[in-house]
């Protein structure tokens, strides 16, 4: 981990109180009015705003770096999750624990995926439509939409004018997200395992 990354991690941790403060202040007060206020209030609001903006940018950078860089991920997540691998015995224990975590997470992801895919409807026909002694029905189905249309809807205009960029959520459905995580877990495991088996 280089010194910039260490600085960024420290920034994210130590500026957290300021981030929480601006979130509380923003939820209690009116952000639009605070942005137009004057004097000390405006100064504090703007300062916290800059800290928050930098915090988001650095957090995004660290998240991206965690996914891309293996050395950074190992160093950073070992500290966050308190994984200790000081000698060969601890490495073996860590491997067994990781295997347990991998399989149990995969099992939960599969369960969630099936719960997201299947549709079950149990209902009763209206009295007028009852025929041949059939009073109710059971309907089973399967639905897979990886892309969530609702989540992808973005506002293009608001009261202040035209919106240029508006990001709020991943435009993936639950099933889509779960499927990506399952494929990522299995793919990641085989990528590393095959590489090590060949060496």
């Amino acid at each position, binding site marked *: 981990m280089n010194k910039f990354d260490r600085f960024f991690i420290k920034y994210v941790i130590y500026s957290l109180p300021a981030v929480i403060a601006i979130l509380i202040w923003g939820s209690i007060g009116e952000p639009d009015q605070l942005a137009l206020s004057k004097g000390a209030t405006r100064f504090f609001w703007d300062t916290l705003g800059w800290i928050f903006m930098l915090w988001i940018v650095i957090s995004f950078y660290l998240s991206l770096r965690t996914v891309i860089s293996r050395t950074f991920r190992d160093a950073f997540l070992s500290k966050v999750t308190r994984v200790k691998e000081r*000698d060969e*015995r601890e490495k073996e224990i860590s491997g067994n624990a990781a295997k347990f975590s991998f399989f149990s997470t995969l099992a939960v992801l599969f369960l969630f995926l099936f719960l997201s895919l299947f549709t079950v409807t149990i209902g009763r026909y209206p009295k007028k439509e009852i025929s041949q002694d059939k009073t109710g029905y059971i309907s089973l189905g399967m639905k897979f939409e990886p892309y969530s249309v609702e989540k992808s809807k973005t506002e293009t205009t608001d009261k202040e004018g035209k919106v240029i960029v508006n990001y709020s959520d991943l435009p993936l459905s639950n099933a889509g997200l779960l499927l990506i995580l399952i494929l990522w877990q299995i793919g990641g495991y085989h990528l590393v395992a095959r590489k090590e088996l060949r060496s």
Partner: protein
Amino acid sequence: MGNIKTKLKITNNLHVLRAEKRLTQQGLADAIGVTRLTVNSMEKGNYNPSLELAFRLSIYFEKDIKDIFTVESKDE
């Protein structure tokens, strides 16, 4: 030569060798580059060291590996 498919039980006399050298578990751990808990696990027979660690112990105690570790069939 027959097949050896039965699980082997490996015992060691690390605690004796350590006592002879008047070493604490931490002292031995520092000398061979592991944690005290690993030395404790090896002495209790809960952990079998890797070949590399076995050789490190062999070099440290100036003994043959067979003088430190004893192998017996688990079925016996």
